Structure formats: C-alpha cells, structure tokens
C-alpha cells in the first residue's frame, strides 16, 4: 500500500514539476517577446494585449488555438516516437509536406468516391506520404550509412519543391487565381469541422496519435524494446531485439504522423494544396517534443503553449509590422534557457 502511495505522490510531484516548468517557460517567452518588441521600437504591452485578445479572450480565439495545436501535436509525436530509440528526426517539416502531397494525390485520383471511402483513403495516403519520406533516412540510419539528423534536414528542402512543382505545374487550378494553388478538393475529401469553427477532425486524429504514443511507451512490449534500443542499442541487439527493424519502423510511424499533420492542414483548413502549407510546424514540433522530454502530457501542455506563441508571431506580423519569422527568436530563446539551465541533458530530444 505504502509503495503505491509513494508512486502516486511521485507522479504528483512530477506533474507539479511539469507545471512549474510550463509556467517558467511561459514567463521567459513573454519577457523575450517584450524585449524583441522593445528592440524594434514597439510597445510590448499593446502586443501582449493583442495576443491575449486573439487567443484566450474569446471562444473563437480558443478554437483557433485548437486549430494550431492540431498539426503541432502530430509534429511533436513525429519527433518523440523515434526519439525513444535515440533517433533525431528533424524532418517533420518535409514529412508534413509529403503527407499533404500524397493526400492531395489521393483526393484528385478519386474525385467521385463517397466520403466514407475517400476520407479514410486520403488519411491513409497522408500517413503513407510522411512515412515514406521518413523511411528513407530510417533505412540509411539502420544500415549505418547516413546520420538521420542530416538526412532528415536535407529532405526538408526537397518535398516543398515537389509540392511547388505540382502546384505550379500539373495540378494548377484553371480558375483565375492570383495564387499558385490547386483546384479545391472534392467535398468528400474535406475533413469535417465542428461548431462552425475551423476546428476539424484532424484534432481527433492528433489526440489519437498522442494516445497511441502514450500507450506504446507505457503499456506495450514494443515501447519497452524501443526504449531498450535508445538506452543501449548494442545490448538491445544482443538481447535479440531487431534494432534495424525498429529504427525503420519508428521513423515510418513518426513520419506518418507528420504526414497526417500535412493532410489535416490541406484537407481541414486550406481545402486545396498550396505552397505555403506550413509556417514551420515541423520544426516547432521538434521543440515541443524536446521541451516536453518526450512525455505525452508534457507534449499536450507544450503544444498548447506553442500554439499561443505562434499566435504571438501572427501578432508580430499583423499589428506590429514585424516579419513572422521573428517568432523564431522567441522559440530559440526558450530553448536557450532550457539548454543552459540543464547541463548534460542527454541526446534525448
């Protein structure tokens, strides 16, 4: 009995610790945000007010946070799952584009299919696209040919070009459109949205992905095997765990989740394929997973926090006239604080 009590209280203190960390990171983010604005000669207070008004102050604002959390959660799990094996998947951005590309392909292939058939099909295609893009570095790593960090980073630059090729070329809409974009998807391929907001079924998919991740790491033999590989791959190999198989599989599943994020952005938000599919959700997902230390609840918290931070990026752009990319300074500052505070943080992202 007392053992159970200790475990419960340990769990409690861990949650407390996570909460303190969450608040600390939010405070750092807010002050750095203020400093950037001061440096650029703007008023931080009005920017705080704008950000608050656009996010937490209204039901609409909160629904928009959920919209943003959808790809972020998936992109974070895409990093966290391979990280269990010690793999560093920085390719979420490329995998996301590949997922959107494959999902669009599926939708344009069967424009007349009914929704009950087409929706699962494009979802599967999205997953496969992302998975395929992650399997390449996975195989290269499993065969000890190329480091997966460099390979995933390089592939991030390739898949947006594939999307651009199709958006400017074969798939370009015949409507008179100022943007290079494809025609709209058939209605049956669009993810349903809820309560008249932009919150779409992708949110359920991302929560399911997080649940799968939690189940996998906490409750299954596979999760244990993956952790064993992450701990000491040589020992795991000698124990008979098929290390190369798990490396490729973990990359595939992770990439598949990132692909689903791209599918959600295309089929749930844009309704067509565009070049500007993601403002770096893949990279932000990496930060979320890293800051959360791979813990499922932490990922949920951090995704929420980063949804607010990226909204602050919009505020920077729209009401303060600064480039959206400036939000990256904010992301970096948060990382700096965590990195500098915690020496000898292992390779676990």
């Amino acid at each position, binding site marked *: 009995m007392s053992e159970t009590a200790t475990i419960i209280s340990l769990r409690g203190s861990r949650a407390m610790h996570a909460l303190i960390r969450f608040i600390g990171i939010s405070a750092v983010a807010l002050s750095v945000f203020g400093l950037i604005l001061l440096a650029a000669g703007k008023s931080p207070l009005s920017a705080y007010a704008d950000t608050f008004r656009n996010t937490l102050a209204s039901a609409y604002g909160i629904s928009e946070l959920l919209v943003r959390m959808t790809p972020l959660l998936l992109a974070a799990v895409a990093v966290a799952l391979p990280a269990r094996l010690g793999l560093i998947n920085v390719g979420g951005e490329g995998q996301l584009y590949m997922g959107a590309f494959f999902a669009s392909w599926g939708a344009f292939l069967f424009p007349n299919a009914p929704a009950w058939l087409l929706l699962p099909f494009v979802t599967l295609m999205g997953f496969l696209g992302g998975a395929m893009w992650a399997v390449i570095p996975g195989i290269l790593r499993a065969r000890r*040919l*190329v480091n997966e960090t460099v390979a995933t980073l390089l592939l991030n630059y390739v898949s947006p070009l594939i999307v651009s090729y199709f958006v400017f070329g074969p798939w370009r809409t015949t409507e008179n459109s100022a943007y290079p974009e494809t025609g709209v998807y058939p209605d049956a391929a669009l993810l349903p949205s809820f309560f008249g907001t932009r919150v779409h079924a992708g949110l359920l998919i991302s929560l399911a992905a997080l649940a799968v991740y939690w189940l996998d790491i906490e409750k299954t033999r596979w999760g244990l095997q993956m952790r064993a590989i992450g701990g000491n791959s040589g020992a795991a190999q000698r124990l008979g765990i098929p290390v190369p198989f798990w490396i490729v599989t973990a990359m595939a599943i992770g990439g598949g989740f990132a692909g689903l994020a791209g599918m959600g952005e295309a089929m749930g938000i844009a309704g067509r394929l565009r070049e500007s599919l993601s403002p770096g959700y893949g*990279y932000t997902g990496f930060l979320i997973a*890293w800051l959360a230390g791979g813990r499922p609840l932490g990922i949920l918290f951090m995704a929420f926090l980063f949804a607010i931070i990226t909204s602050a990026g919009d505020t920077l752009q729209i009401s303060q006239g600064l480039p959206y990319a400036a939000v*990256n300074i904010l992301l970096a500052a948060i*990382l700096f604080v965590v*990195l500098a505070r915690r020496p000898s*943080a292992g390779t676990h992202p």
Partner: protein
Amino acid sequence: MTTPLLLGLLAGAILSGTSLLYATLGETLVERSGIVNLGLEGVLLVGASVGFAITAISGNAWFGLMAAAAAGALMNSLFGWLVVTRKANQLASGLAMMFFGFGASALIGAPYVGAIITGLPKWRPVWLADLDWVKSTTLFNYDLLTWLAVPVAILVWWILFATRWGLGVRAVGEMPAAAFAAGRNTARLQYQALLYGGALGGLAGAHLSLSLTLTWAEYMTAGRGFIAIALVIFSKWNPLRAIAGALLFGGAEAMELQLQARGSPISPFVLGMLPYLLTLVVLLAWGGSRRLAAPASLGRTFYGAN
C-alpha cells in the same frame, strides 16, 4: 557540351562554390575541436543579413563584410557558451542556433528588403582579360572573397596541421582528456575554434548577399549550411579536400542556373532539388566509410575541465 558552356559552368561553380567553401572551412575548424554545429545555417543567414544591412547603411561593402564576420563569430560564441560553458547537448543547441538565426536574420534584414547596394568590387587581372576564351565568360572576374577562397583553405589546413594551436585544437577534438592532461585549456581552444569558424561562416553568408545575389531575402541560404555540414564529412574533415567538394556542389548549382537560362524543359523546382539529393547521394556513397576519419570525440561533451 561546347567549350563556352563548360567554361560558363566552371565560372558559375567557382562563384557559388565560394560561400560553400568558406562555410565548410568554418565548420571543419569547429568540428576538428570536437563540436558539431548544426546552427551553421543560422550563422550563414545572420552573416548574409548583417552584411547586407551594414552595406546598405554605410554604402561600403567592406564594412558589411567585416560586420558579417563579427556577427558570425558572435553567433558561435553564444553557441559556445551553451555547449562549452554550460555543457548543453550539441545537436539541440545547434538547432536552437538555427532557429535563432532564422528569426534574427529576418528581423535584421526586414527594413532592407529591396534595398539596392553596390556589392563587393570584382576585378580580373589584365593579362587574363585579354585572352579570347576568357573574354566571353565571367571566368576570373571575381571579388576578393572568391580570389582568397583557395588561399584561405590552404591557410586553415596549415593552421590545423602545422601549428601548435592547430595541434591543440585537433587534440581536443580527438581526446579532450589527454589534451587537458597535457596542460591545454580545452575550453579556450574550443571557443577559439568556434570564433574563427563563426567568422568564416559569417563571410560565407555575406558572399551570398554581397556578391552573388545583391539582395536580402528571408531564408535565402536555403539549406547551404546543411550542405556544408555534409561537405565536411565528404572532405574527411580536411580543408584541402573541401575545395573539391565546394566546387562539385557549386557546379550543381551552376548547372541548375545554366539549364534554366537556356530554357531547359526541366522544371526549375526539379532542378532545385539537385543539390540536396546530390548531398544525400554523396553522403551515401562516402559517409559510411569516412566515419573513421571523424574526430574521435566529435559531438561529445567534455566534463573533465572543471
């Protein structure tokens, strides 16, 4: 292929290879001291934006160049504070620097988008300018950075392999405990390597904005930093081999431009993938067998010094 086309390709390869070579040399220096800097992309971006901004303000590209080198060194000293002083994880810190570079360069460059600058002056030696086969191309019409690229590579090689300081840097990269026991200040050596490497990275970025494109655009380095990191592996951490690597990749870029200029039926987007895919192929062909050439303590944090 006709001779003018080949010469044009070579000229283009040298021009686009210049910034790659400086970036590769900088990263080689840093990696020889046992540190992987994935933030090189950020260093290049900050170098490009600072160089452009200062040139636009002062009207003098040389000031821009110096500012870019200083900015690159500053970026790497921040990185050094994280990984050397605070002993943080190198890969995560490098990615943090990459994000920082994305943001900082966008902020620095934003007021100067579309600004018109006079770039680095170019000149061609008189005795070469009179030759017929040179006249029709841009061959040998280079700015100072391009003219100095190969001498700098030789200099970096000489410093690493023929000076006491270079021996110290390599010792720290191979076995920091031994270097420390031999009385070397490992942290100082790593900081020095980072500063010089950062300055080279800043110059690499500045060459893009001050000589190659004469513009500033967000994310204009487009992954060159990562290509340079791959080139370090390709060149077996040797500054002289890096010259060949930079030429090869500069050639891929030049080929892309030449084909586009000649109205090739291949889509520019497909051609744009070439450098990244080529990098992967090169890593695939040589990366595995070259692992032994890497500094033995590359990427590891040394805890012994304090």
